């Protein structure tokens, strides 16, 4: 089973099982992981599912698309490893993925 780890701003780590094909945002909501709001429900239209991808995963996860990059303009404290978790699809290659959630969404 594929696993994704979410680390919140206070450092608490939660590892949950993720369905291949689901997004990282959906994985968080399905497992009641705090720190992800997903106000728009996954339409890449709100920037409230912002996460920081752990350094060792940035290459595998890849860069945001142009649309996602535009939407990241609305997120706070954007860093080079910022992504919107509704735009990351879980694949077997992402088993063990680690992302952190920011202090505040949107």
């Amino acid at each position: 089973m594929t696993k994704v780890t979410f680390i919140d701003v206070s450092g608490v780590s939660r590892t949950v099982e993720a369905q291949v094909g689901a997004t990282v945002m959906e994985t968080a909501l399905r497992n009641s992981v705090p720190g992800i709001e997903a106000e728009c429900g996954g339409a890449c239209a709100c920037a409230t599912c912002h996460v920081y991808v752990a350094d060792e995963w940035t290459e595998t996860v890849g860069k945001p698309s142009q649309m996602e990059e535009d939407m990241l303009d609305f997120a706070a404290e954007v860093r080079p490893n910022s992504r919107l978790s509704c735009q990351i699809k879980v694949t077997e290659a992402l088993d063990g993925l680690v992302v952190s959630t920011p202090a505040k969404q949107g």
Partner: protein
Amino acid sequence: MSEIIQTDAVIVGAGPVGLFAVFELGLLDIKAHLIDILPKIGGQCAELYPEKPIYDIPGYPIVTGQGLVDALTKQIQPFHPTFHLGEMVERVETLGAPEKPLFRIATDAGTTIEAKVVVIAAGGGSFQPKRPPTPGVEAYEGKSVFYSVRKIEHFRGRRVLIAGGGDSALDWALNLHPVASRVTLVHRRDEFRAAPHSVNAMRALVAEKKMDLVIAQLAGLKGADGQLSAVTLRGADQATFDVECDDLLAFYGLTMKLGPVAEWGLNLHENLIPVDTATFETSTPGVFAIGDIITYPGKLKLILSGFHEGALAAQKAHRYVYPDKKLLFQYTTSSTNLQRKLGVS
């Protein structure tokens, strides 16, 4: 005070559910005015996902958010709804008695409407400018931090820092440039979502040193008594630095807030409005609520649920608007009376 508009129903929210409520009310001869804070019709469908496909609208295997809004707008055309767009309902006063309600609805644009029933179809609440997550920003709001420009004159001769990379940010940077003593545009990256001609005009002004462009993110505010003296920025290298300014105009998009609905005297449960599921009436007789803003056992936040809720609300609304008329249940397929209203017979 401007003239008071008299009508049967006021619908708060012009999203898909509010639009379809016009149809259901219209079939029962109830005339409606719609009010929405957005400058356009369609609510979340038009604002958040106009190009995204929706797959669970009955009869449409696939339709985009905008496609659904356009179809609904056409469908309600026979009932000639009046739209008040770009206005936020601030107050809903109850004037009548519970058995014969009358409401006075006032918007922030000065529109006043008296209606026999109110239908709240406000979805996730009103779209409001997103506040930058900078600690202490509230203290400056309205004095030297703004999320829209209401009076250009306020900015005359002042040093204005504009944050954002979309059309609002670029348009105001260009429009305030001749008015302000200095305009500094701050954006997190050297790419802009705004229209290319605005971006080119901005770059030309920056090249002529008539405007400043700083690639950075907001990190803090400095000032006293609501008056800014500087904004702290964090550059790509994570180093922070201050830019002196008198005003900050921040354009970080929109977010949904319940807003003034909370102050209309309705019972609320976790920011949602509980309703009677036979009539979709709230705790206030004559005030109905439908769509994503309501809660009841088994509630699903689906557009199709909102359509059903509007149909039932209209039945009870008819009793308030036409207390002496008996309501006959009719089908649009076979009723010449309904077809006449729809302009198809």
